[in-house]
């Protein structure tokens, strides 16, 4: 009976739970009063965009050559404003019942590593960056509203949850986690009204630049070599009946305070470039030997006027989600609808529809259909297998559909979890 109950909860939660800022079906609660401990190692990654194709993104991250065909594939998807996001996480955790007399209470401790990037970019930005300014001869490239942020940080977290029994078939699970954040790296670029005009013959380039760049203490000047610290919290709530489950959560609500050696650079300048002024042109030997002049320091430092070191606080990407799951066929089939919202990013509201089927006591397969977020429609499959000795494997991807259409698809990702209870 204990084993049946345990397995029920595993499948039950797999179909419902969302974690991180991606859709990954790892449970927030152990929900197994028969076992004292549960350990888990898990990880996930995703890249999603409404414009950048999988082939382009993969080759970019793998350091390969980006051909014109690949750029053309992206250009077909470009609109006035485009977004992309990428994330890679892994964590290890231990869940246990701290009160041997009350198995409804559970606690969790763990360690998590997170890297997150997201951006919003105009069409001209992509073309300027990946194709050059020649195509803008006689035209103005509008780079306004380019935004990019990237965080790498670690979290040491601990939490506690409790099961409240309302009646025989109605329960409430509530839990919270507090994480201590260790900032490793961050970069944030916020571009205001920025335009770049290229003369049709290339005789001059005019730029109107307005941007702010924030970055961490890359020189690691703090004695601890930590670039930033902060706190964040997760809140979970689940209402469970015999045939349904309502789940609400708020995850990663917090921030990181980057140390006082962090840098803020403000660019607010008009820039006209019509060539390096060469004097004494007839002294050609001397002219050619000015090769050691640092062009960047000679020019761009002229319009980066406001650079300061200061403490910078950044809000972390957080997720608010809610879902409803209905079980049929003796809990063999589960159907879930959900919605989530990723804050502090340029993601849109994400709508989720999931259906799961339990083949037998050891195997469960689900499909997920998603619309919104950082990209368009995508669909995925998840699979859970229960090994002997209470070992569980969970793996899947929410982006099977765009990954099949590799060259034109605009999202990819996968997750994997291995856990054991005892």
């Amino acid at each position, binding site marked *: 009976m204990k084993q049946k109950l345990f397995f029920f909860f595993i499948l039950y939660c797999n179909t419902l739970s969302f974690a991180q800022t991606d859709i990954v079906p790892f449970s927030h609660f152990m929900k197994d009063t028969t076992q004292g401990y549960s350990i888990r190692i898990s990880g996930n990654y995703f890249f999603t965009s409404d414009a950048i194709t999988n082939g382009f993104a993969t080759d970019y*991250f793998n350091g390969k050559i980006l051909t014109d065909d690949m750029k053309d594939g992206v250009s077909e998807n470009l609109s006035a404003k485009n977004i992309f996001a990428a994330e890679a996480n892994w964590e290890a955790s231990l869940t246990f019942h701290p009160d041997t007399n009350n198995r409804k209470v559970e606690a969790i401790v763990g360690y998590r590593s997170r890297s997150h990037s997201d951006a919003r970019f105009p069409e001209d930005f992509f073309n300027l960056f990946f194709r050059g300014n020649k195509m803008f001869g006689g035209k103005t490239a509008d780079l306004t509203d380019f935004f990019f942020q990237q965080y790498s940080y670690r979290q040491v977290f601990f939490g506690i949850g409790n099961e409240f029994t309302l009646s025989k078939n109605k329960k409430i699970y509530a839990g919270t986690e507090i994480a201590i954040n260790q900032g490793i790296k961050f970069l944030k670029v916020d571009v205001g009204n920025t335009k*770049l005009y290229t003369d049709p013959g*290339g005789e001059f380039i005019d730029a109107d630049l307005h941007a702010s760049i924030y970055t961490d203490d890359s020189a690691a000047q703090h004695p601890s070599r930590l670039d930033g610290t902060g706190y964040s919290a997760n809140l979970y709530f689940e209402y469970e009946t015999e045939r349904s489950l309502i789940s609400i959560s708020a995850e990663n609500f917090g921030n990181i305070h980057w140390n006082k050696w962090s840098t803020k650079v403000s660019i607010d300048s008009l820039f006209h*470039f019509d060539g390096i*002024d060469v004097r004494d*042109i007839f002294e*050609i030997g001397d002219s050619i030997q000015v*090769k050691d002049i640092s062009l*960047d320091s000679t020019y761009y430092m002229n319009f980066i006027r406001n650079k300061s070191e200061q403490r910078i606080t950044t809000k972390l990407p957080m997720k608010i989600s809610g879902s409803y799951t209905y079980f049929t066929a003796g809990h063999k089939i589960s159907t879930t609808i959900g919605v989530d919202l990723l804050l502090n990013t340029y993601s849109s509201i994400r709508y989720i529809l999931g259906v799961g089927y339990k083949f037998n006591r050891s195997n469960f397969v689900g499909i997920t259909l998603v619309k919104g977020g950082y990209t368009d429609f995508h669909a995925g499959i998840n699979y859970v297998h229960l090994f002997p000795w209470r070992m569980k494997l969970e793996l899947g991807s929410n982006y099977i559909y765009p990954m099949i259409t590799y060259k034109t698809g605009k999202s990819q990702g996968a997750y994997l979890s291995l856990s054991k209870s005892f």
Partner: protein
Amino acid sequence: MKRLAFLLFIILFLTTCKKENDSAQWDVNLLTPIFKASLTVNDIIGDSLSLTAPDGAVTLVFDSNIYSTPLDSVFQIKDTLQSTIFSSPGFITLTPGFTFYSQPNDLDLDLQNVELSQAIIKSGHAHLTAKNHMSTAVVYTFNIPKATLNGIPFQKIEILDAAPPGGVTDFNGLFDLAGYSLDLTGVTGTDYNRLSYTVTGQTSTSGITVDLIPGDTVVDVTSGFESLIPLYAKGYLGQGDVSISGTNRIGTGKLLNGSILIDSISATLTLKNSIGAEAQAILTSMSSVNERTGTTINLVAPDFVNRTLNLNRASETGAPPSPVNSTYYSIQLDNTNSNIVALIENLPEKLNYNLNFKLNPLGNVSGHHDFLYTDELFDANLKVNFPLRFAASQLLFVDTEYITPITPGNDDNIGDGTFKLIADNGFPYEFSLQLIMLNEAGQATDSLFVPDIISPAMLNGNFRAEGSTRTIISIPLSVERRKSLLNTNRIAVRARFSTSNYPQLLQVYSDYFLNLKLVGDFIYKIR
């Protein structure tokens, strides 16, 4: 250039997304200005070498000292050293404080027909070498009674320790005479070129009594003067007669060929005599030499060439050393009295001249009151005013420069492309410019700027250029060609220009300009 890309696009942001040490690569097409240069007449010939009239007409002014008389062409003081070795003729006892040697010298400076009564030394020294063979210390004193510095006669005293048994002690020293005033009238006070001095030797008053036997060396002294150069000299400077053959290179060595027609030139040759003696100068010949064509044109100026030019003596403004009132003699050469235009139209690399210079042609008329300051003797200055109104045809300048090969390094990301040289020419001249890369053997391996003609500005009815004419020269630059350019260590520059409407003479105006800009249209490999 990768940094330049950053400058242009401010787009390094995304590179932070990449895996560490793992960079994607792609090509971007850049269209960007690279360098610009603006040349005006003043940039080319410099403010200090030009005069600009109110209407903007420019005149080139060449002002140069073409000859200065060296002192040794007037006289030279030779080094003089005299040695004295004296041995004991018998058994002699030298007590402490005994003067055993006192030798007055009345040195003749051997200045030939120059007779100086006074000199102030600019540099040089007295030299004393003394050896002591005796077993007591000795004191040598070098006196020049008629050499004074601030009224104090020259005197130097040197003490030589007692010689060890069978050995010697010695002194070898130089005494600076700079600033000393020398009375060269000798002991009698009526001679010339006489430098009187005395060297005395004395046993030390604190020494011991020395018994000498026959043959013992008592005196072993060498004294005299070396490297004396006067700042000032007075007396009779003689009748020096100097023939000078000189060459002045005039800076057209990089001009390979072509022809030029010049409207006019005026030249002023000024002879300056700062010597307190009469002088005569005769320019026996002057010629312009074009070594490329083998053409030599002699200056024809009847009022100047082979004519004796008498130069009055300069005068002293006060007691020496005081400024000198020099005298001047100027000769004006222009189209009317010479063929100087033809000399310049010959496009010479050099000017050759032969000049005879004679001092005191009438002898000692001053009664030994000639003088000279050696820093300023006799100078010849040539000032040429060349109104830049000329016509030129296919003037070809060639120069070769050694340059440091550039290691591609991070700059090796430039792919194939085409560079454009955009020239806005406000000169009424047609230019062509070619850069030729040379190998170690000096052979051309490639050239840039083909076709290479920069068109002239249009002329108005007054033959004055108006506005500018734009020429765009396309320079295809493949990766291979660029590498060749970067790796070359020698480059030849060939610049050719012709004035419009040759042989119409055209005036150069100060507002003429040539603007050059290099624009790159190339592939840049982002890595």
